[in-house]
């Protein structure tokens, strides 16, 4: 188990402002946050590359804050994998063993086989693809059997296809070795797929720690909601609340949501764009919230389209290209948007 208490550190343009965290053995823990939040700095402090200005780090109950990196038994994989360019793949993988005075070629070969890089052992890092480099880096770090594996943005240098493979590989490694993994990323999808728990980090602080789904469905505040891809965050005031069914007055209209907020409270209503439906005729459905508005923006988003509708307040909706075609969507078209009261998360 890793426990971090009151960690502070100023370094160049980054700062950690009092980090408290606990990560359990065997857990896949993702630290999710925008660029510049201080995520990599936090990992480097755990690994011992920097000393904190204040605060402590405990691994399995032992205070390691003053220990040099080589005595912490922590595996660290940087974003660019940091393979040693002057050593071939075999020498890279066995580096950790050599530093411990162990020479065991068969362990290197078994590890290479597990990660499907046996055919690369004689090659030099600069001749490998990104995915290959990453597997070499993982082999190198797993061979020292670390207590915890720290991954710094492991996918960001890979193309989308390789990212898929890598995600599966990381899942496999984690489930087979029951290794504690702390994985840093700014990508929510990656976090959601891999994480047991997620810590959201912003401006040098941990702002929410929760099970993966909870962070997505129930972000603690509007900034987290924004970052987690909740594109519609509407500010308003609670006007009534009867048994959870809450009315929230926005500037121009009123929406209904399910929450425990008290009347008079200023709140943010979070609404994911995939939960907003668009129709061209007024609909009768269980959706309590239905508003008319004009399409003011249509933007392709991979397989989907993001449609922005102005109905007194701005609402983004994701729809498939097929349905856009069927609805005859175009800029300026009058449409009705609707969403269920249960789809609105109030913070």
């Amino acid at each position, binding site marked *: 188990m890793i426990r971090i208490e009151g960690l502070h550190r100023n370094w160049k343009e980054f700062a950690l402002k009092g980090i408290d965290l606990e990560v359990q053995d065997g857990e896949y823990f993702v630290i999710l946050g925008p660029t510049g939040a201080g995520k990599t700095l936090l990992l480097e402090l755990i690994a011992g*590359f920097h000393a904190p200005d204040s605060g402590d780090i405990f691994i399995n109950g032992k205070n390691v804050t003053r220990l040099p990196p*080589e005595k912490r038994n922590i595996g660290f994989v940087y974003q660019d994998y940091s393979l040693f360019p*002057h050593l071939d793949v075999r020498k890279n993988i066995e580096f950790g063993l050599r530093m411990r005075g162990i020479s065991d070629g068969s362990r290197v070969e078994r590890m290479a086989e597990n990660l499907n890089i046996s055919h690369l052992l004689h090659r030099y890092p600069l001749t490998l693809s990104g995915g290959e480099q990453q597997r070499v880096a993982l082999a190198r770090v797993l061979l020292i059997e670390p207590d915890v594996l720290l991954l710094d943005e492991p996918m960001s240098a890979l193309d989308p296809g390789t990212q898929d493979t890598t995600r599966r590989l990381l899942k496999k490694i984690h489930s087979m070795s029951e290794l504690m993994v702390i994985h840093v990323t700014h990508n929510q999808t990656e976090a959601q797929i891999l994480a047991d728990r997620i810590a959201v980090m912003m401006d040098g602080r941990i702002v929410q720690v929760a099970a993966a789904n909870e962070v997505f469905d129930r972000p603690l505040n509007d900034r987290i909601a924004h970052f987690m891809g909740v594109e519609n965050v509407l500010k308003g005031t609670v006007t009534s609340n009867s048994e959870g069914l809450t009315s929230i007055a926005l500037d121009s209209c009123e929406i209904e949501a399910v929450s425990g907020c008290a009347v008079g409270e200023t709140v943010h209503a979070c609404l994911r764009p995939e939960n907003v439906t668009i129709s061209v005729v007024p609909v009768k459905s269980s959706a309590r919230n239905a508003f008319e508005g004009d399409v003011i923006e249509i933007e392709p988003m991979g397989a989907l389209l993001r449609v922005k509708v102005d109905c007194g307040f701005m609402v983004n909706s994701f729809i498939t290209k097929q349905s856009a075609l069927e609805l005859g969507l175009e800029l300026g078209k009058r449409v009705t948007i609707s969403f269920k009261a249960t789809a609105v998360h109030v913070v």
Partner: protein
Amino acid sequence: MFKIKQTRHMFTSRKAPEPLMLVFLFLALVLLLFVAVTLANMVIEQVVTDLPALISAACEKSVIKSISLSMYAGLVATLISLVLGIPAAYILARKDFFAKGFVESVLDIPVVVPHTVAGIALLTIFGANGLIGAPLESYIQFRDAFAGIVIAMLFVSAPFLTNSVREGFQNIDPRLENTARSLGAPMWKAFLFVTLPLAARHIMAGSIMCWARAISEFGAVVIIAYYPMIGPTLVYDRYLSYGLSASRPIAVLLILVTLTIFIAVRLISAGWRIYDKD
């Protein structure tokens, strides 16, 4: 590799050459010829007009002694520069500290100080009455001694090594060292097995520059140690005593020996480029 490709592109491109490029080419040519013709002219004229003098100079004992002394003292100065310069280069490459700019300037001073001035300064401190020379007098002497030659060479040549090695260290991503550390390497092992090999080319290039600078030094050496004579001192001594025709064969010999070693070392270390990341 990349640089070669670019050059080739510059000369084979079908586009009309830029006028500025033509001007640059012309000026670069002037510089090249200035150096090459001056030296080649001396060597060729000596070989053509008075080959026997060159051969007899090459067989003369005092000439051989002086030139080998130059090489050897230069080598010792370079080795000392390595021992003292690599740590300094590493600290300057990796750490920021108060007055770093000042420290860097101090280390670079020998490059700008006139060499006779350096010689006077060295003699003042390493001479028999000097701050360092006096207490050491019964153990080691610098005035007119091998140690004095090495000290003078070290003073003027160490900055070249330090600067080159520092650039090499700066080119190495500190993440590689961090990774080595977390894989179980104490700092000295990370330095020995990761940092040093990756800086090999810069260390080699710096050593060549340092050694070349050391054996070409005259001003500082001649003040602290006229004797034993190093190559350049012998050339100067013969010139003053017997004139141009007596000193030139030695000068030519000195150039030929130096160039040969210089080219040989460069060829040997050319393959080290593979360690470079770029």
